[in-house]
């Protein structure tokens, strides 16, 4: 790491901490009335709740950015995120099916914990089946995997849409609230359990940073330098599946967050070392998500973070593609 990168990392860290504090205290401004009518007990509850949400954001940002980063390394492409493989739609279809088959009041829906386990398992299983089918037969052809992901996601999309048309407004609302990213309906117990899982996955990815550095050179070079390319690809894809499944069912789909974070890091840090990039993209992703959430709250919650991030991320990516003039 050179001096400039260290400096940038420190600045990022400071901004991240400041935004974290802003998130913990923004209600003082948006809900001023509470200061007149509330008491210490209420304040404590609010801050505690927000601290848990902050933890959830940290967890999912870590998972989203590190999985996006290694996914881009595997595919050697800068405009991809794992969610292109259709996780969002699979998540959507699982939730829609649950609500329509079991009704709004079923334990599988009302108990966030059970719901979480079901949707996470579904996503991991589907992904692993897909990997097995495509990668084994076709010599790790990731582009093929990508196309299949696109098709499966549109398939899943049409299935969930089909079911949603038949729903009564209650069920429709219930699906909407389950699938729209909203940091306000996170289950606290879930967050505590996810922290260790997230740490394990991120550490596993981080420990392989040198292998990814080599893999980024291309498969032939990597094999020449003694990396078991095919094996590493498969293991990494399983990590990615777990990471995306967890983060999607915790805070919903955030397609563009990984893209903004990883590409922003590339542009600012001008490095290809995964060691630096994992940390930096995590910080950047956190800053973007946190700033988005604070802005949404200052706008009286009249929009959602996911939409805001799609707006920013989509524009940024198209700007980037145009600037680079090639793909």
């Amino acid at each position: 790491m050179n001096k400039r990168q260290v400096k940038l990392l420190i600045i990022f860290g400071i901004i991240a901490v400041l935004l974290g504090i802003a998130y913990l205290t923004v209600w003082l401004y948006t809900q001023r009335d509470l200061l007149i009518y509330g008491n210490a007990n209420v304040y404590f509850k609010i801050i505690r709740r927000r601290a848990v949400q902050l933890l959830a954001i940290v967890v999912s940002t870590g998972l989203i950015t590190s999985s996006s980063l290694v996914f881009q390394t595997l595919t050697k492409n800068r405009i991809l995120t794992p969610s292109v493989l259709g996780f969002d739609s699979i998540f959507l279809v699982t939730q829609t099916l649950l609500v329509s088959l079991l009704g709004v009041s079923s334990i599988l829906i009302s108990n966030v914990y059970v719901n979480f386990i079901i949707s996470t398992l579904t996503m991991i299983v589907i992904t692993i089946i897909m990997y097995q089918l495509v990668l084994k037969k076709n010599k790790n052809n990731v582009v093929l995997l990508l196309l299949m992901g696109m098709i499966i996601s549109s398939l899943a999309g049409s299935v969930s849409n089909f079911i949603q048309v038949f729903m009564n407004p209650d069920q429709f609302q219930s699906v909407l609230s389950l699938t729209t990213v909203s940091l306000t309906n996170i289950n606290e117990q879930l967050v505590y359990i996810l922290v260790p899982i997230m740490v394990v996955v991120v550490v596993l990815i981080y420990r392989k940073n040198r292998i990814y550095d080599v893999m980024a050179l291309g498969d032939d070079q990597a094999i020449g330098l003694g990396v078991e390319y095919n094996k590493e690809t498969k293991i990494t894809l399983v990590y990615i599946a777990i990471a995306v499944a967890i983060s999607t069912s915790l805070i919903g789909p955030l397609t563009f967050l990984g893209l903004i974070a990883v590409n922003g890091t590339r542009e600012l840090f001008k490095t290809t070392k995964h060691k630096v990039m994992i940390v930096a993209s995590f910080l950047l992703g956190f800053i973007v998500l946190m700033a988005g959430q604070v802005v949404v709250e200052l706008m009286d919650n009249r929009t959602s973070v996911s939409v805001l991030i799609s707006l920013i991320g989509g524009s940024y990516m198209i700007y980037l593609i145009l600037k680079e003039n090639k793909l």
Partner: protein
Amino acid sequence: MSKKKVISIAVFIALVIISLFIGVSDKVSITNLLKGDKNAWFLFYESRMPRTIVIILSASALSIAGLIMQALSRNKFISPQTAGTTNAAVLGVLIAYLFLGTISLYLKFVFAFVFAMVFSVLFILILNKIKLKIVIYVPLIGIMYGSLISAITQFIAQRFNALQIISVLNLGSFAHITRLNSTLLIILIPALVIAVIYATQFNVVSLGEDFSKNLGVNYKKVLFIGLIVVAAISASTYIVVGPLPFLGLIIPNLVSLYYGDNLKKNLFDVAIFGSSFVLLNDIISRLVIYPYEVAVGFTMGISGAVIFLIMIFRRVKSHE
């Protein structure tokens, strides 16, 4: 006429006849129609016939729109649905709804058309600026572009509590088609005529800007006309029928697999193939839970996905 062509036309005609005589009412049968049964003729004229005509018109138009879009963007994996065109049409409908309240079908169309047009021009401009190494990434940019437009739509819809308006538009169906509410699709006829007239020039444009200038074709003009045709087709079918997934993507690819890349020669086959495909899907959707029916967008989402997967795997195999 080749044997293949005769077979495909025969299949098409058979599907048209089946499509006309499937339905909840058993009054509409050939014998009743020949007897001159008034009820049978009424149903036939008001519901069955419009439905089948709408299917043929919109299916062939959308397939041809896909073909033109693929020629203009010089990429086999593009269709109006993977290039943000339909997303833009939704945005147009939403804007029309917000500013004008409940509005007529035609005004809706004008808004959807204008938005589809503007955003497809933008997309082609972006594509022309990028040097691509792998063609598969083009639909990826298209999807990203589309989701950017959708994000704008959602952002606006959330602020004005109009989310369900967008959701209603999300699944293609022919179930509600009658003689009255499908008149908007008359717009497809001039669009198709223009497509036929300019077919050769679209083909030339698909060779690239420099090449088409060499051959004496006004690149920008033809590109613009092509996009007008595509936008008109996608906006009008989207409003009347809803999205028909994979149609514009797989049909042109299937046809060029058999007949090569001559766009003018292929137009007719694309129309026949596309209509047969949608007719078949519509018949299936009407029969699976008879006397009810599922939306054709759902059936096509599945059958189209499967066909597309097979096509990809075949391509991979031939590369090996």
